[in-house]
């Protein structure tokens, strides 16, 4: 009963359009004021301690690093390198877009940022080459989603924070699914491009490829710093994020010189504001999950599900449907922070691996970002291409179907997520 009141209240408040963080907080306050004996002062305590955790600090650091990279010409150099490698196949520039998104995803923790960084450069170029606008937008909207699957990933940090799963393992687990999804998206692109006979780029020779690689190497080195740093034991994931921010600053300002020192304060301010927004959602989500644990809701859920005789297979199906539905109205961070504390205990009870469960949630979030009504990638792509959301939605569907099929694969073949982390850690 209490569970019902809590969720109805939350969804009603959310649908009025107020910030998600505020609706979470107000739900908790209303409930605490009227229905329990949990002292209301614990709200203030939780509002501070909710984010008092070093692991969470990876989020501002990754955002800062990402902003230095989007500002700098890192994306452009990655695109040039990608074009030199795959540009001569059918739909060359589009394939280069997929590859460049995968590369940029490996240095950035956010999907919309990946769409912005790669899309805003490659989409105008594609239109000039004679691709239909929708084709380019479809490729980049979906490939940009790789940003949260290929490590580093802000959404994975969020999942780790709300379930106490190791960030390092999650990052490692994202590598294979990320590469696979990039391959499938590329395959879809290639198939469509061959069917419609879209243009190819002239084939680059190895000297040109080498030169393009060298120019993009400073950006690519960040992959080594983050992943290499974590797995060689140089840094913890949060420290790796801080190192990435410093490194990205140095290459943007001093190596590529795409940015002047005078622009740095603005980048700091923007990153701080974006981080503060996410941290504010986290605080209120922590408060909310405190409420639902005090009300024993996860345990109740778990016993309902086991009483129904639901096994892992049907449970995971329900999880996917639930998350895809949530993806209609909310953005990933809030979904993960609200849903993970509820679903995770049940998943554990059914013997699902926490890392596999995390990857499955991330892939769900990727799908959610690419379809309307709420889909941040879609909005971003619409901003760049000046296409309407409806038009874009139609443009995106071939790749979205690919992603859904891939979601099924990741859901029921845990080895895709677990093989690499198990190899590295055992």
């Amino acid at each position, binding site marked *: 009963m209490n569970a019902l009141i809590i969720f109805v209240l939350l969804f009603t408040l959310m649908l009025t359009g107020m910030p998600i963080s505020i609706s979470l907080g107000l739900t908790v306050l209303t409930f605490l004021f009227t229905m329990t004996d949990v002292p209301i*002062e*614990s709200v203030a*305590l939780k509002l501070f301690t909710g984010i008092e955790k070093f692991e969470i600090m990876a989020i501002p650091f990754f955002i800062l690093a990402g902003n230095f990279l989007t500002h700098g010409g890192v994306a452009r150099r990655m695109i040039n390198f990608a074009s030199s490698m795959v540009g001569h196949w059918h739909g060359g520039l589009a394939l280069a877009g997929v590859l460049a998104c995968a590369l940029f995803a490996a240095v950035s923790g956010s999907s919309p940022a990946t769409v912005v960084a790669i899309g805003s450069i490659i989409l105008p170029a594609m239109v000039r080459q004679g691709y239909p606008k929708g084709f380019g937008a479809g490729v980049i909207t979906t490939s940009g989603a790789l940003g949260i699957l290929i490590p580093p990933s802000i959404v994975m940090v969020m999942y780790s924070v709300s379930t106490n799963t*190791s960030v390092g393992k999650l990052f490692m687990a994202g590598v294979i699914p990320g590469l696979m999804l990039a391959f499938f998206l590329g395959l879809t692109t290639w198939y469509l491009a061959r069917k419609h006979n879209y243009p190819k780029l002239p084939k680059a020779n190895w000297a040109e490829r080498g030169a393009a690689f060298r120019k993009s190497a400073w950006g690519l080195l960040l992959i080594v710093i983050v992943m290499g740093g974590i797995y060689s034991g140089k*840094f*913890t994931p949060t420290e790796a994020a801080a190192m990435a921010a410093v490194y990205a600053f140095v290459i943007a300002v001093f190596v590529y010189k795409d940015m002047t020192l005078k622009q740095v304060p603005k980048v700091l301010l923007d990153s701080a504001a974006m981080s503060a927004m996410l941290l504010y959602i986290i605080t209120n989500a922590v408060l909310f999950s*405190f409420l639902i*644990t*005090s009300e024993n809701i996860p345990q109740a859920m778990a016993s309902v599900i086991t009483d129904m005789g639901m096994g892992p297979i049907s449970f995971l199906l329900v999880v996917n449907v639930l998350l895809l539905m949530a993806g209609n109205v909310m953005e990933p961070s809030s979904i993960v922070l609200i849903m993970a504390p509820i679903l995770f205990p049940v998943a554990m009870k059914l013997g699902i691996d926490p890392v596999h469960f995390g990857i499955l949630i991330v892939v769900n979030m990727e799908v959610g970002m690419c379809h309307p009504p709420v889909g941040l990638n879609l909005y971003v792509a619409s901003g760049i291409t000046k296409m309407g959301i409806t038009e874009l939605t139609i443009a995106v569907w071939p790749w979205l179907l690919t992603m859904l099929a891939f979601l099924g694969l990741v859901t029921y073949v845990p080895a895709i997520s677990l093989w690499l982390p198990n190899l590295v850690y055992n």
Partner: protein
Amino acid sequence: QTPIVIKFSHVVANDTPKGKAAERFKELAEQSLKGRVKIELYPNSTLYKDKEELEALQLGAVQMLAPSLAKFGPLGVKEFEVFDLPYIFPGKDVLYRVTEGPIGKELLKKLEPKGITGLAYWDNGFKVMSANKPLKTPADFKGLKMRIQSSKVLDAEMRALGANPQVLAFSEVYQALQTGVVDGTENPPSNLYTQKMHEVQSNVTVSNHGYLGYAVIVNKKFWDGLPADIRTGLEVAMKDATKYANAIAQQENDKALEAVRKTGKTAVYVLNDKEKAEWRKALLPVQKDMESRIGKDLISAVGKEATALGYK
């Protein structure tokens, strides 16, 4: 009538010594007070995390906790850091003379102005050192990055050994050891084993250089407001639970050490007398350095208890 609810929150799993002791206390108390109290256990930080539970207790959001003794320093009662001092307790007998005697009672009294009543001390045990190289003499620590829990005393301890102390959350330790962010750590054997740290440490040295324990505490206002007979009933239950807690801590530590040995992958080394003397020589200055923080009288009072039991 409706029973009085006591929320007992802690940060470890149910199957750890502390978790088991909490369950035993719940059983004993509910049995003897026949439905007049209900103890609700919240293990695993389900309600409050390590960092917030003390404040939650002070606010009255939970009634009972069992934090590690090191938590009381930041609360403003630095005297509790005496338990962290290296080689302060030459044996369990000295420890119990302190915790069950006037010194322990005096220390718990110091919590009262903070709105806290201390009920009992629960053991976790003496600590072992671990790393990926043999640690026989203090020289072996040179330059090692050693994980500690946040504490000025432990920081000084590691520095006295020539190591480089690193504060890391308990939950992060396994991965940090595995990847080499830190080289080694100190733990009671049961923590080392349940966190599987031995999987990523090739060497364990039984040094018994330090102690880790808990205090069971309640919100003072809540406690003073209880009917006197209920308070007495709870105190009796706590006394029995404490006996159980200390016995089980010892058992679990012995079992854990044996299990680590059995894996055959981690070498367990017990310091001989000569080596132990070297460790003591390196670490005893920490006691002196910390006098100004913890209190000279308190440290020497503990020393006297040791002398009384025949240690020199």
